[in-house]
């Protein structure tokens, strides 16, 4: 297999992992704040903190992994995106910092505070919104390269583009949907009936907007970057599968059946859509400036990274398995007995 394909597949898979685990985390923060406002926090906050406490730090690493990896495999991206994303990246970074630290302050800092809670809840919505603009920018049209090689970012274009807003909207509803679907399953495993009912309602509520937002993104992309749109049409079956998985998940949630399967279907829904999007985006990393071939690092470094990655997986997979066994698949922990 070619190096650039291996590299981008590894990175894209990690980004997918981040989308799932971070969505759960972001959405949970929002739901826990929302439930505090509607005075239902005593019902669902326990389930949420039970899950989030041991894993929040791991979530962050997925993101760091992705951006360190992309600089390693495709160094040119550091130059183009680094220059262009100073402000959007700075905002995302600020929000991530606030979120991470205030989570710890609220959670380990002995006292519940409304402000900490508010910050934690709201950043959960703004971070995905600001991070999603990176994918928007990758479609081209928001960065211009001048004759002397300087990169100029066009913020007005970004803020007035319908495509950009459709992506932001999709990111937000996806976060809420993924999170609610997972938390429903988790509450079910914890045998926490009242929390389960509330979270199931959230999941069902956000499922419809998810489908609508996806359709909106398709239409907006047709306007913004028709080439990419037609590439997607060529593999339309992938996106149809995604839709089928989504409908299956909704069906199971509705009838309160096989909730574990329901969440797996949600993951598959996003896997199909995410990899379908990524595949049709190729070969561009930043349209039209960087492709996976042009941006690729030298092959020595590339293979060194691949080897490091494989070695790393041998270390990580058993550890992650242990973490999940102790906190996710341990019925006694989930129920709060230990």
């Amino acid at each position, binding site marked *: 297999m070619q190096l650039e394909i291996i590299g981008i597949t590894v990175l894209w898979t990690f980004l997918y992992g981040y989308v799932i685990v971070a969505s759960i985390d972001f959405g949970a923060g929002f739901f826990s704040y929302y439930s505090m406002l509607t005075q239902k926090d005593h019902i669902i906050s326990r389930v949420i903190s039970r899950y989030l*406490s*041991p*894993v929040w*730090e*791991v979530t*962050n*690493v997925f*993101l*760091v*992994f992705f*951006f*360190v*990896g992309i*600089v*390693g*495999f*495709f*160094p040119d991206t*550091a*130059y*183009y*995106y*680094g*220059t262009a994303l*100073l*402000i959007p*990246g*700075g905002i995302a*970074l*600020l929000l*991530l*910092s606030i979120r*991470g*630290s205030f*989570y*710890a*302050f609220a959670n*380990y*800092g*002995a006292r519940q505070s409304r402000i900490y809670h508010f910050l934690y809840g709201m950043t959960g919505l703004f971070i995905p919104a600001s991070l999603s603009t990176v994918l928007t920018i990758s479609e081209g049209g928001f960065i211009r390269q001048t004759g002397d090689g300087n*990169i100029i*970012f066009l913020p007005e274009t970004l803020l007035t583009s319908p495509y950009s807003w459709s992506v932001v909207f999709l990111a937000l509803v996806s976060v809420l949907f993924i999170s609610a679907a997972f938390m429903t399953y988790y509450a079910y495993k914890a045998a926490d009936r009242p929390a389960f009912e509330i979270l199931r309602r959230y999941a069902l509520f956000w499922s419809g907007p998810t489908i609508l937002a996806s359709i909106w993104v398709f239409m907006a992309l047709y306007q913004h970057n028709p080439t990419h749109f037609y590439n997607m049409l060529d593999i339309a079956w992938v996106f149809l599968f995604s839709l089928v998985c989504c409908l299956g998940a909704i069906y199971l949630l509705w009838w309160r059946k096989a909730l574990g399967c329901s969440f797996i279907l949600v993951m598959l829904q996003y896997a199909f859509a995410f990899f379908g999007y990524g595949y049709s985006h190729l070969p561009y990393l930043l349209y039209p400036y960087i492709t996976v071939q042009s941006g690729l690092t*030298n092959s*020595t*470094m590339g293979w*060194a*990274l691949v080897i*490091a*990655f494989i070695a*790393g997986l041998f*270390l*990580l997979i058993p*550890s*992650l398995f*242990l*973490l999940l066994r*102790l*906190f996710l698949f341990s019925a006694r*922990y989930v129920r709060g007995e*230990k």
Partner: protein
Amino acid sequence: MDSATLSRILTAETLGFHIIWATIGVGVPVLISLAEAWGIYKKDPHYILMARRWTRGFVITVAVGVVTGTSIGLMLSLLWPRFMQLVGNVISLPLFLETFAFFFEAIFLGIYLYSWDRFKKPVYHWLTSIPIVIGSTFSAIFITTVNAFMNTPAGFTIKNGELTNIQPLTAMFNPATPTKVAHVLSSSYVTCAFLLAGIAAYCLLRGRNHSYYKKALKMTMIAGFILALATAVAGDLSGKFLAKHVPEKLAAAEWHFETQTKAPLILGGYLDENNEIKGAIQIPWALSILGKGTPNGEIIGLNEFPVDERPPLYLHYLFDGMVLIGSYLIIISLVFLIVWWRKKNLWNPWMLRGIVLAAPLSFIAIELGWIYAEVGRQPWIIRGLMYTNEAATTADNVGTLLVVFSLLYLALTLISIFVLIRLFRKKSVEKELEERRIIL
């Protein structure tokens, strides 16, 4: 100010802030693991409680460390795009490995925190602390290799302005790596030993004289003494490394202008308008010994370098400060151990005050050391290869970012101190011992 200057300020600020938390993140797990191991071995619940309480504080500091670490990671791309492009080509391997090490640490930190009473044998729980120590230490090692690369780039050749013949491992194990890694690790460990010792001494000074604090102080001071010696050795080796590979950095720190043998070491003092050293203590031969291990060693002076490639001369004070504090740590822990050995009054308030003082001092030494390391490389971002000014972003708005992040760091400092104080006040050692029914 131009983008390059603003980028430098923002990066300096972020690193200066991050290094406090990163040092705690690297050093404290070692002491936690030690305390728990000792507690299990001695069947002494005081040490176990120590590990528990240190962990509780550690989580908060780790959280700030994680967010500032993420900040600096992303900021390097945002503020220094040209630099990261080159780094991506030559030295991205350790950066990539660092995320794995951190991943590993994060997973086991989650496990460690939430599984105190879940294992049948306490030793299993202690075993989960080992991956945390390994993860955090290797994070530090990998990141330090990248910084070492900036000082002594290696593992590539330049042909017609293109980087070719790239060897990732040679880049990673560049000449600066061994001494730099040794110095960073030992100084992180020693700083945390003195941080925890300082807290115990402070509690004793305040009249809380439970044997818990005494045990904590003894343990951290033994560790502190050994680690302070190790740091001094690592520092000495770093001096020899500098004299050989980066002579201008050592020369700037020592106001050493003329190349000569039997070079004196200069402490304090100031430079008059003719760059003559005034009011300094001169230790004959000492610089030659530090740099080459023998009084006849020739130390290259600053005059050998073009004026625009010399680091600033105020580095001298940073270097002196770092060395003085390092010596203070050795002396205070040595005095403590001698008094203990002679069975004199260990809990003398002056002794305790001296130890309390050592805690902030050791953090100051870390800051001084890092400023020395980074400013001492100027005007290069990668020595001999890329100027700092060339590497900076061309985008505007760095100033806005600088203001926003300064406020963020200020807020994080205040809030985390506040949260930590409240956390430990609310649950004092005495109260917790009672709750857990630990009576010895």
